[in-house]
Every structure is written in structure tokens, then in C-alpha cells.
């Protein structure tokens, strides 16, 4: 029997639910040297800001049990380069739906970047990352305050006249459902859960943090149970689709995320460990579906 791995994400049909997560897939085209990008369900492009950014000083990476910390600091060439150069280049290599990932340091910046992404014909969906600090509110993350999350969502929604809006949430909140509902109420078409969990490591010989930035975002397989719970909570609290992200490294992790309530799944750190991670997961899905008696992957979304 042919197993149907396709899913419908905000009206866009993905041939499978596997999406490399923003920041773990270069600018979107580097992995084309390892496999055909058409294999993927969609591609989430590198986090982009209004202005170009160098990012943080190095070291930016620290290994941990079950994953890693990163403090790349949103290195990117800026939204104008994304829409004029990067997205067209990735599009020239594949027909896979492309998701722009937007970060801003003020509500206005989110709005401007989303407007530019909306006008870019190579981009199919827009994901806004609300885990960044709000410079007008003393650096407090937009994503930890329902009112600030709502304000970003409203600005992005207004700017995106043509394209679906995904809002990517941080796990570092007391009540994920309050943030999720705030974004849904302001017109988010889907939510991505979760971003990295803030963390740090210390070099005990040098008596200094391993990362030049002191702290970074923790990601990797150790995060899967945390992500599953939050996806499950958000899925129960909202009607809009959830994109599950956090520690996914195998086809069985994808199935777990979907049973928890995810419509599609992002694969992040696994790409850093193994460039063939995503195609490996995609290739393993049909056999696992057969073993589990799943004909259509969409049938298991949120069944628990």
C-alpha cells in the first residue's frame, strides 16, 4: 500500500511533514551538495533581520549531553538580501515551499520585514521568531509576554497580505497556552513550538563560560519531551495548526510530534550532526507508518 505522508499546512500541501528548522540549514542552499532539496516537505530559511548582522563573537557553539548550545546571534545578510538574492537562489534549486524566518528588535521591524517577505514571490510562508529581545521594553523577549506576542503577531498579520503567518514560540514561559491563544487571536495561521531553551556551560579550567556570549540556546534530542508536552498543550488550546520543533531526530520522533498535535515537524540540531538527517527521516517514514498501521499521516495529528 502507498503510504500518504503529505500534510496540509495553512493551505499549502507539503509532500511530507519534515522541515529543516531555521538556523540549522545554512541559507537554504548549502545542503543541496548532499541531497536534492526537493526531497523536503518545506525549508525554513535562516533567521533574518531588517539590517545585516555579524552575530555574536566566537565560540558560538558548546556541546552538551543530548545536544548543544548555540549563540550565533542571528548572523544574517538582512531582509533585502534575503528577498533579492537568497530566496531566488534557493528557489532556483528546488520547488519546495520556502518559509522565511523573521526576527525583529521592535514591532516596527517585524512589520517592515514581513512586508518585504510578503512581496517576495519565492517565499511561500513567513515564520516570525518572537524569542528576540524587545529593545523598546528593556530587552525583554516578545515571546514571554502575551501582550507583546500579540503586538508582533498583529503587525506581522497586517504586513502579510498574501502569505500564511507562523509564530515561533519560546518554551521559557509559565503558561504556553496564554501566549499561543494571544497569537491565534491576532491572526496567526500556525504556531511553531519550540525555540531553543536558554542555557550555559562553564569551562572549569579557564573559569569562564564556554560561549563568548556567556549564554546560548539549548537544542538537541534532550529537548524532545519538553517540546512534545508544549506542542500537546498548545494543540489543545488552539484551533490553528502547530509545527512541532525540538529534538526531532528520527521518523518515530516525527510520529510522536504529530500524535502530540503537530501538523508538520521541524528538524533542527540533527542537521548539524548529520547532513543526511532529514532525507533519512523522510525515507524511514513509510515503513514506520506501515508498521504502525497508519495509511495517511494526517490521520494521527493530535490523536492523544
Amino acid at each position: 500500500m502507498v503510504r500518504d505522508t503529505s500534510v496540509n499546512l495553512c493551505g499549502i500541501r507539503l509532500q511530507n511533514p519534515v522541515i529543516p528548522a531555521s538556523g540549522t540549514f545554512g541559507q537554504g542552499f548549502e545542503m543541496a551538495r548532499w541531497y536534492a532539496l526537493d526531497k523536503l516537505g518545506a525549508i525554513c530559511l535562516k533567521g533574518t533581520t531588517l539590517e545585516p548582522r555579524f552575530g555574536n563573537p566566537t565560540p558560538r557553539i558548546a556541546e552538551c549531553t543530548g545536544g548543544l548550545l548555540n549563540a550565533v546571534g542571528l548572523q544574517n545578510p538582512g531582509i533585502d538580501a534575503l528577498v533579492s538574492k537568497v530566496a531566488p537562489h534557493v528557489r532556483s534549486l528546488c520547488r519546495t515551499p520556502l518559509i522565511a524566518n523573521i526576527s525583529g528588535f521592535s514591532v516596527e521591524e517585524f512589520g517592515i520585514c514581513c512586508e518585504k517577505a510578503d512581496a517576495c514571490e519565492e517565499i511561500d510562508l513567513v515564520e516570525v521568531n518572537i524569542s528576540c529581545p524587545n529593545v523598546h521594553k528593556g530587552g525583554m523577549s516578545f515571546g514571554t509576554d502575551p501582550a507583546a506576542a500579540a503586538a508582533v503577531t498583529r503587525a506581522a498579520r497586517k504586513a502579510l497580505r498574501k502569505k500564511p503567518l507562523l509564530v515561533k514560540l519560546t518554551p521559557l514561559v509559565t503558561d504556553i497556552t496564554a501566549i499561543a491563544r494571544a497569537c491565534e487571536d491576532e491572526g496567526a495561521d500556525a504556531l511553531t513550538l519550540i525555540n531553543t531553551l536558554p542555557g550555559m556551560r562553564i569551562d572549569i579550567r579557564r573559569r569562564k563560560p564556554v560561549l563568548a556570549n556567556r549564554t546560548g540556546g539549548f537544542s538537541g534530542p534532550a529537548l524532545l519531551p519538553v517540546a512534545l508536552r508544549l506542542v500537546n498543550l498548545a494543540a489543545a488550546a488552539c484551533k490553528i495548526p502547530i509545527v512541532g520543533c525540538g529534538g526531532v531526530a528520527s521518523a518515530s520522533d516525527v510520529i510522536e510530534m504529530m500524535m502530540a498535535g503537530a501538523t508538520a515537524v521541524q528538524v533542527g540540531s540533527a542537521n548539524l550532526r548529520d547532513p543526511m538527517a532529514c532525507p533519512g527521516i523522510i525515507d524511514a517514514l513509510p515503513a514506520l507508518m506501515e508498521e504502525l498501521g497508519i495509511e495517511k499521516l494526517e490521520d494521527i495529528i493530535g490523536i492523544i
Partner: protein
Amino acid sequence: MEKRIYTISANEPAVPGVYRLVLTADGAPQQRSGQFVQVAIPGKYLRRPLSVSLSEPGRLTLLYKVAGEGTATLTTLREGSELELLTGLGHGFHVEACRKKALLIGGGIGVAPLHQLCRDLRAAGREVVALLGFNTARDVLLHQELSALGADVHIATLDGQAGIKGLVTDALGQVAPSFDYFYVCGPMPMMRALHPLLSGPGEYSLEERMGCGTGVCFGCTVQTTEGPQRICHEGPVFLKDQLPW
């Protein structure tokens, strides 16, 4: 660039704190000098980026310094064990950039990739003069290997127990070699100290803590005259003019 399983055919100390790891895989292609590999280490999440000292068809020789838990674990793996590698990573040395005589400068474990570079330069009929710097006489690597390839090798040690006493910058002053192109690999302070002393064109192989090694995580970025670049992807070798030193 490929992912492939290699078998360990030797994994022995070369000098104190540095191991020579010989890996074989039938049919594996040779990689360019200056490219690196990412080695999966049992029990570690990320791979470890290691310099290739010599690449031959079906065979890789790596020199690695025991720098932390990952490389310490690597020392425990015995002959016959298998390792999964990503090979052919990054952009290596421009062998063709040298017209007649090359100057190679290496410091510590940074001498590793100079072995294959020297072989390839000699195969292309270029003369090679090499300045290799170490802490002590016990740490000296690749002296015989480069001499056997016909290079004019000069050693510098900090304590003066072997060769010239001092740093490679001292050796550069004393030997005062003629060359039309230079290649440097070593610790960042060494390379920056050499930079103002080296006239003429050349290139440096840089190092940084890496995440992916394949250009996707932006963990190893360095500022260049052409903007931010990834050491694992656009590098590790950068031309002199690309570095804003």
C-alpha cells in the same frame, strides 16, 4: 564531500598529547590538501573537526591533539574499530597559486595539513621551505616526512632544544627564506604575529570551534574583507587579502 564509514588501522601517540590516526575505506576518494573531516565520536553529540595530514585514495592520516573529552574518547578506540566521517569539507589550499617556491609555516598541531600540501607542491615541481614551530623538541612533528619529500625544513622550539630557539617569527627572521607564495597554519596569535612579517601573496588556514562543519549552523564565523564568512564552509583557508588583520 561525502559521509562514509572508515576503519581504524592505527591510532597511536605521535608526540605527547598528539595522536596519529590512520583510517581506511575501500574506494574512498582523495580529498584536497587543507580540507578537513568531521569525525563522529561515540557518546558525543557533535562531530569533531579534524585536520587531515595526508589523504590518499582509500586512506586518511589525521594528526589530532587531545584537547577535551571528545578527542580523549577518540584515543581509546582501537585498530579495527569503525568511525563515521564526513570528508572533503571546506576549501583547502591553493596549490596552484605557488609558481616556483613555497614557504610553509606551521605551529604545533597546525603543522598537520602541511604534510599533504608539501607532497602536492613537490608533485607539482615546486620548491618548498618549511618553518615548523613547537614548544619543545619532544613535540616536533613531520620533520622527517617533509624532509623526505625534499623540503628544506627548519625547526623552532621555545626552549631551543631543537633547531632555532624561539618562535616561528624568530625562525623567519633567521632563515629569511625567499618564496613567491606562503601557506600558514597554526594558533591564531602565531598567524597574526606572522601577518605583518610576510610580504607577498599567501594564505592562512583558520580554526574555530565548530558545530556542523558543513556550513549550515554559522557557528564558526570570522570577519573578512568580504564580510562574515564561515571557517568550515568558505574556509578554512583564506587568502591574505581576505583577512582584516
